[in-house]
């Protein structure tokens, strides 16, 4: 097909879809639609991970982001009863300036990174590094300590989220008695 391989076609289609859905996340007015477009973006990024032979990360990405984090976002949005009518909008000047700053940033990044094709390829080793077996070996030998620290971080976040999110009835009753 026009001299391109299937992988290259897939890369092009996935990149196009990811960028389109990411733009829709920013430009849709309804927050619920934004969340759904972000889920689609994450599926496209998971497809990219599959193309890069990172099968384990692709699955974890879908489970963690599309499955857990986005459900949390949807839940909070529904709790707050947000929709397009109540959506606050920035002034048009601010939005134009934001677009301009983004464009300039893209310009600088493309200019700075365009020489990257001269990077040297490192050969050797297996191409199976994305599989659970190999990732697990690296994770539980080389990165064992950060792994344990991550568990402490998740515990701290759990406790913190519960402490912040719960309704403090004690403080109000103390204020009312004083």
């Amino acid at each position, binding site marked *: 097909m026009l001299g391109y*391989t299937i*992988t290259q076609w897939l*890369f092009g289609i996935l990149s196009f879809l*990811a*960028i389109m859905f*990411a*733009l829709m*996340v*920013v430009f849709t007015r309804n*927050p619920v639609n*934004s969340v759904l477009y*972000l889920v689609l*973006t994450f599926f496209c*990024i998971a497809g990219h*991970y599959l*193309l*890069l*032979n*990172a099968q*384990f*990360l692709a699955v974890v*990405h879908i489970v*963690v*982001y599309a499955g857990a984090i986005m459900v*949390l*976002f949807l839940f*909070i949005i529904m709790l707050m009863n947000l929709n397009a009518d109540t959506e*606050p909008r*920035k002034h048009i000047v601010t939005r134009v300036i*934001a677009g301009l700053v*983004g464009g300039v*940033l*893209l310009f600088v*990044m*493309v200019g700075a*990174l*365009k020489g*990257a094709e001269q*990077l040297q*390829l490192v050969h*050797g*080793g*297996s191409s199976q*590094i994305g599989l659970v077996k190999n*990732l697990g070996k*690296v*994770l539980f030998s*080389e*990165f064992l300590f950060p792994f344990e620290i*991550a568990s402490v*971080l*998740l515990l*701290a*976040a759990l406790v*913190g*989220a*519960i402490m*912040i*999110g719960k*309704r403090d009835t004690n403080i109000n009753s103390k204020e009312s008695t004083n």
Partner: protein
Amino acid sequence: MLNGIPINFYIMLSAVLFIIGAVGVMARRNAIIIFMCIELMLNAVNLLLVAFSTLHNDASGQVFVFFIMAVAAAEVAVGLAILSMVYRNFKTIDIDLLSRLKN
């Protein structure tokens, strides 16, 4: 070349996704949308880490992505708890109205 795709393409794709996220942070007022744009920026960086991990045939990059996902999950949990608290007290999550620190 990664399966016939130059690393340059991945770098440009990540840059574009990152900048879309950055523009979203600058242009929107809803705090939840800003959170989602930050997630988008994190994912752009993750994609680049995986691409370089595959390029160099080194699993460390993918382990980093794994840790970034754990940190992002923790960040979202605490951030959304703070947002729901803010909404309970102020009945809004418009960041332009939540400027009490400025004065």
